[in-house]
């Protein structure tokens, strides 16, 4: 098997891969609901959101491969890296749990990604700006869909309220990583390519507070924030996810149909 390293990747390749990995891993997670969602409309909705995210990841992986210039295509990135090669945030690899967990994970992520894509649309990198312009409209739908469900569950029955509250308590510790930046990010921010994510926090908090107020939820007090995914240190869940996602290419290298 070819060993594929990204530790010496250029900042642009690393930046693009992190975005692609977020989209692919969350897209795959959502696809696990296909045929299992609590109702037909939500089955279709989650599959559609998954499709948007996997589509975003394809465009990003293709660009990362071109920027890297070593002949890797989208499939090489998706199928031929082990867990430590992935650079997604921990939030997106967390298991689906019940419907409330899936919805809360989607809401926390989408509330971040909508303003993120809006900023990236102004990137000095034309290709990233073009991908962002498509993804921004999709993220707006993902946010609206998940926010409506957070309100419905939070302001619903005693049981739905309890479940969405538990989901929030389980996932909140993974939100800090969304706002992290390292040297690679800062180098690109200076060149007008990357988004300064620390500046997105006020808008994200406003969105979260506004929806939580309607849902009757309280933003958890400051807790210890988990981190590591952006550096390739993942929870045990990612390996199981990849075993599923990569099975065919691992068992039958180069298979296509």
């Amino acid at each position, binding site marked *: 098997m070819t060993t594929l390293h990204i530790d010496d990747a250029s900042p642009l390749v690393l930046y693009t891969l992190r975005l692609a990995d977020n989209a692919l891993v969350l*897209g795959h997670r959502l696809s696990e609901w296909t045929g299992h969602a609590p109702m037909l*409309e939500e089955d*279709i*909705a989650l599959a*559609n*959101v*998954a*499709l*948007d*995210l*996997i*589509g*975003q990841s*394809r*465009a990003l992986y293709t660009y990362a491969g071109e920027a890297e210039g070593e002949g890797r295509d989208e499939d090489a990135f998706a199928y031929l890296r082990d867990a430590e090669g992935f650079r997604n945030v921990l939030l997106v690899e967390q298991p689906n749990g019940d419907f409330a967990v899936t919805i809360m994970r989607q809401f926390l992520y989408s509330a971040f990604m909508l303003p993120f894509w809006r900023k990236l649309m102004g990137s000095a990198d*034309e*290709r990233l*700006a*073009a*991908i962002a*312009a*498509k*993804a921004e*409209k*999709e993220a*707006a*739908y993902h946010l*609206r*869909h998940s926010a*409506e469900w957070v309100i419905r569950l939070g302001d619903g029955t005693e049981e739905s309220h309890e479940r969405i509250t538990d989901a929030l308590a389980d996932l909140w510790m993974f939100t800090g990583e969304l706002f992290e930046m390292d040297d690679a990010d800062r180098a690109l921010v200076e060149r007008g390519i990357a988004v300064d994510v620390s500046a997105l926090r006020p808008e994200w908090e406003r969105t979260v507070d506004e929806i939580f107020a309607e849902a009757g939820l309280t933003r958890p007090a400051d807790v210890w924030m988990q981190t590591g995914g952006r550096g390739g240190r993942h929870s045990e869940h990612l390996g199981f996810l990849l075993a599923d996602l990569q099975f065919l290419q691992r068992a039958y290298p180069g298979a296509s149909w």
Partner: protein
Amino acid sequence: MQTHGSVPAHSELERRAWKAAATVTDPEIPVLTIADLGVLRGVRVDDAGAVVADITPTYSGCPAMNMIAVSVDVALRNAGFSDVKVNTVLSPAWTTDWLTEEGRTKLKAYGIAPPQGQTGRHALFGQDDVECPHCGSHETERLAEFGSTSCKALWRCTACGEPFDYFKCH
């Protein structure tokens, strides 16, 4: 700058190639051609004499894109072009504003409510006023944010009782 629905090509050869590519229909909405949809951005002949067709996805994950690319390739080859390239472009991003007037009329006749108004924040977050494609009533309500394909939502008419697809404003 291209004009939607017209022939954004310059030479006779390019016009012929555009007409051939523009016959391709959307595999999921077969009453619309990719020209009606604004998915076909342009057809040109490059310096090496190859015909290059530019197509753009409606949504990042639109699963019809591969099929559309193959269909454009076949349509151009059937029209006598042997050196054909189909190129996917992302910028400027597709919006429902790219849908031609003819495309909107065809959608409605097919039973799909065309996107209402212009794209933008209001269209995304505000309440859409959607006309029932069956009876014309505006007494309609959204059943689900997502429908049978990425580009559609599921609505229902409370006047005639029929559910219908709404081509989302995007």
